[in-house]
């Protein structure tokens, strides 16, 4: 190996990417946000191992117990042992601790799926709208139309058309989120397509799809990661609202919204029914928003100033 080969090796891989990673890792809101989200995800994922009961198991004897109430449980092999309802039980005697933990699964799944789908679909539509000028007008008017419908109303409509369930809820939340992504991507494409390096690529005969993927798309990554986190947070909130209103996920499935809806009637007597899922919801949304804010600062300082 020649010595001259060394410096060339050293600069392999975009240096700015490594720098942003380092910047992100140094940003406290990225670190805190990511840790909280990770913790919630682990709680949801490992729920069966964390001393929980089946979340839908009804126990009419143990209804509306305060946090810390104890009872005896008989295992499948017949032995009895003491179980503590850490967060109390609801009006059907279900263990709220278990339900909150399992509820994290639904919330995070919905948040992430909505973010991924709306970013993916919005990215494609946005690229087309931004680059194919004659399609821009019609696409954007449709998007304006979608944006004009209140998200919750649209979601209620979609859910009532089909049977309530995870997929219906995801679709209902994705639709109003797409126009936001489209607008963002389109505005980036519109400014990047004027860059001389894009024009240079045109004059060397790069086909349009390649041009978009190679020269335009990379510029959308950082803003989209940020937009994705905000979409994720708002999807979790909307899901909770829909479930709370009784038009979201069926009530037997534990979600934070469902638990709160269930506890609403006895809220004054047993506030713990609403307190724990509400706390988790607030924590999750706060953490994801912090993550997004921090990533925005780290990935693109100019973007942070613009917003």
């Amino acid at each position, binding site marked *: 190996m020649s010595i*001259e080969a060394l*410096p*060339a090796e050293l*600069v*392999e891989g*975009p*240096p*700015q990417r490594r720098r942003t990673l380092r910047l992100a890792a140094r940003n406290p809101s990225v670190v805190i946000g990511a840790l909280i989200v990770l913790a919630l995800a682990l709680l949801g994922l490992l729920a069966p191992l964390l001393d929980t009961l089946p979340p839908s198991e009804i126990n009419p004897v143990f209804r509306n117990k305060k946090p810390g109430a104890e009872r005896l449980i008989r295992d499948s092999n017949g032995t009895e042992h003491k179980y503590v309802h850490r967060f109390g039980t609801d009006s059907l005697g279900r263990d709220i601790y278990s339900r909150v933990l399992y509820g994290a699964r639904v919330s995070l799944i919905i948040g992430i799926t909505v973010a991924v789908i709306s970013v993916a679909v919005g990215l494609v539509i946005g690229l087309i709208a931004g680059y194919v000028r004659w399609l821009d007008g019609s696409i954007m008017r449709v998007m304006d139309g979608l944006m004009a419908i209140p998200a919750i109303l649209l979601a209620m409509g979609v859910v009532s058309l089909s049977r309530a369930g995870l997929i219906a809820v995801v679709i209902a939340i994705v639709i109003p989120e797409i126009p936001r992504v489209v607008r963002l991507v389109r505005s980036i494409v519109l400014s990047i397509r004027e*860059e*001389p*390096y894009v*024009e*240079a*690529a*045109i*004059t*060397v*005969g*790069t*086909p*349009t799809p390649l041009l978009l993927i*190679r*020269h335009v798309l*990379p510029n959308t990554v950082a803003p989209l990661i940020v937009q994705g986190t905000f979409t994720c947070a708002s999807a979790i909130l909307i899901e909770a609202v829909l479930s709370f209103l009784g038009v979201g996920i069926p009530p037997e499935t534990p979600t934070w919204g469902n638990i709160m809806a269930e506890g609403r009637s006895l809220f004054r007597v047993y506030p713990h029914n609403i307190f724990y899922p509400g706390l988790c919801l607030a924590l999750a949304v706060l953490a994801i928003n912090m993550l997004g804010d921090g990533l925005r600062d780290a990935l693109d300082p100019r973007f942070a100033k613009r917003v």
Partner: protein
Amino acid sequence: MGKVQAILAIHDLTVTLPKGADRANAVEKVSLEVQPGEIVCVVGESGSGKSVTAQAIMGLLPAELAARSGSILLEGEDVLKADSARLRDLRGTRMAMIFQEPMTALNPVMTIGEQISEVLEIHTGLGAGERRLRVLDIMRAVRLREPERLIDAYPHQLSGGQRQRIMIAAALVLDPALLIADEPTTALDVTTQAEILKLVRELQQRRGTGVLFITHDFGVVAEIAHRVAVMQSGRIVEIGSREEILRRPRADYTRMLIGSVPALKPPVRTPKTGPVALSTHGLSKTYGTLGLLRSGRVVRAAQSVDIAVRRGETVGIVGESGSGKSTVARCVARLITPTAGEIRIGEVDVAQLPERRLRPHRRNVQIVFQDPYRSLNPRRTVGASIVEGPINFGLSREQALDRARRLMTLVGLAQDVLDRYPHQFSGGQRQRIAIARALAMEPQVLIADEAVSALDVSVQAQVLKLLDDVRRRFELAVLFITHDLRVAAQICDRIAVMQQGVIVEQGVTAEIFAAPQHPYTRALFDAAPGKDAAFGSVAGAA
């Protein structure tokens, strides 16, 4: 000190840069004086510390820079020791500054009158009526026509030259002893520049203001300087009267700079007789359409442009901003579709070809852009940028890389730079890379759209030489778009002068420079700064 007290006396000023910068001090041991009624030009290339010096005087240094030692005496008072309240008092009353970009230096949502009057409001106790009178006075003094109408106008309603006059008016309204001008004419067209320079000289004579004029343009220096300080990498390498610096420069660096300024007198060139590689006939581009609902506002960016470029020939299109010269370049490169007319590349008319059928012809016409910082994709290696085109046209990666390596040698860069990213290169190096990318396509026509305008004068000379080199070697037809008559004089066989979308005059460079026919061409030549100074011919130029 027996003489009159200097308005500005900088002594041993050192401004430190933050750690990790390419040098320790932005400005190092700079000493400089401005006497009453004197214009001192600080001239230097980008990064020479000339703007930092100006900022230090105004107390406007960015937070990460610090004046570490030395003194800046403004009429005997050290501004480095002044607190922010005192500095605020001094700005506007004793010293004032005008900037390069008159559009961004003016507040777009305030009227012209309000902005000038703001200075009076802060520093004097005048009532609204008196202030208005003073504002009208100063507007007349900077030779603005119809000040009564302009005083209530907003910045966007004014031309660039008018805006710069407003800036000067606001700076001079309180009769400061010192005016700092930081590249005040760089963003302006030459004819406007000439007017502004004349105005600065006139006002300065009448009011006895001392002027510290920062510029990179030796033409401007030749026009207005009494004394000149040449800066390089934060130090003053030479200081002296205009005659001394321009005629008998002592420092090698000054000699090199002055030697790099292209002369206005075109060299003798033999007419080129190769086959016509590019020709346009009646090329027109119109923006805006007569819509059904909108009242049609139509801009004719280019009208019936006829240009022919032979192989091995350089044809220049010169003109001021908005003359349509870039529109022609972009039409020829087919970055935009012309409204009417023909563009013949060899025998084929590509003017209206749809993208799919145009693509095979694209390799024949390549373009080098003005801004070397934006014409390379920052996320891709230099090598990836260069091989992209040849691979589009069927070369294998290895063949394309091999070609790229040889081109690197040709444009004067090491072959291993192909693995690096654009941000690791200077502006001049990037422009070389952009030229290599264009050449990798083996084009017949090369368009240089203000390709050397963003470069420092010494780098500019090298890139011009490279362009001329590759033209000769590959028998290229070069369409050279520029606003700079000096550059056009040196590199173009023939030039076309454009004004408001129309070619007003076209012919052999030497003939047009010797005897311009059209009034606009004559006005352009008259406005060229430093036209009487003999640049490029200083003895011993490096």
